[in-house]
């Protein structure tokens, strides 16, 4: 636990600000990363609205809704965990971070089950694509974007889960308190960002049209 700022900083407050600024800069690069994928999606949906509406009806809305609730709740538990860490409540912080981790794992499992279901239905673009219909190519394009974008998102969730594990260990070792909480707060920023990406993925693939 550091109570003295590193030598390049004037004081702890400036060091904390620098860490937060750095984390937000990284998140801005993540916006770049997902942004181009969303732009590709937006263009494809503008060009083929009926195909995307048809394809969207083949996604599992219940599973997607539960995944959304799971991630939103995990952001809440993470916020409580950071709060506990700042207050010096080590065990509560570790417990809440672990619960957040469990919710993250729940999301991964649910989504992986969804992938398997889609593969079984013949929605995986490529050799095994088995959808027959007037807009088959557009549906295939939809599912290409679905697997690519939610796949990259799931990768980010997995990395987040690993980092959450490290944070839980640090919390158990009483590393955090009112003086030092930068790692857990930066982890929360990352986790909240991953949640924000899903908040936009969900309407993009599950809520195009359900009529």
């Amino acid at each position: 636990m550091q109570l003295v700022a590193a030598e390049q900083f004037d004081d702890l407050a400036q060091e904390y600000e620098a860490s937060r600024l750095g984390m937000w800069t990284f998140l801005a690069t993540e916006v770049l990363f997902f942004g181009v994928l969303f732009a590709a999606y937006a263009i494809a949906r503008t060009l083929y609205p009926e195909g995307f509406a048809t394809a969207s009806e083949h996604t599992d809305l219940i599973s997607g809704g539960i995944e959304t609730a799971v991630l939103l709740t995990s952001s809440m538990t993470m916020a409580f965990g950071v709060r506990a860490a700042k207050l010096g409540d080590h065990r509560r912080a570790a417990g809440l971070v672990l619960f957040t981790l469990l919710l993250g794992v729940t999301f991964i499992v649910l989504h992986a089950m969804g992938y398997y279901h889609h593969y079984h239905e013949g929605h995986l673009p490529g050799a095994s694509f088995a959808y027959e219909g007037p807009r088959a190519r557009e549906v295939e394009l939809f599912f290409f974007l679905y697997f690519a974008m939610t796949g990259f998102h799931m990768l980010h969730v997995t990395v987040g889960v690993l980092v959450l594990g490290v944070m839980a260990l640090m919390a158990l070792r009483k590393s955090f308190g009112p003086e030092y909480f930068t790692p857990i707060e930066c982890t929360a920023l990352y986790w909240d960002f991953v949640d924000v990406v899903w908040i936009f993925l969900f309407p993009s693939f599950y809520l195009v049209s359900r009529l």
Partner: protein
Amino acid sequence: MSTPPINAGLTILRVWLLLLGLGVINIATAYVPIGAWTWTITYPIAATMTALIMIYYMHLRDSTRLVRIVAGAGFFWLMLLFFISFADYLTRQPL
């Protein structure tokens, strides 16, 4: 430092309930008969949920102006990307 910015427990809970409520409204929108225009409702709702998370959970409300500018920079770049890409696609004429 003296006092780190801490969210009150009630604030965290209220934001969570708001997020869940907006999520439910979002799901309901898919069943409204407006065909291809669902995005005009679902994406603003998603943007509202994002704003709630960024302001409260990600502490933008007690961040310095510099941090808020960096947070907005990604969004600004995204708008540039969408605007210029759509300016291309929506103005394409058949050869």
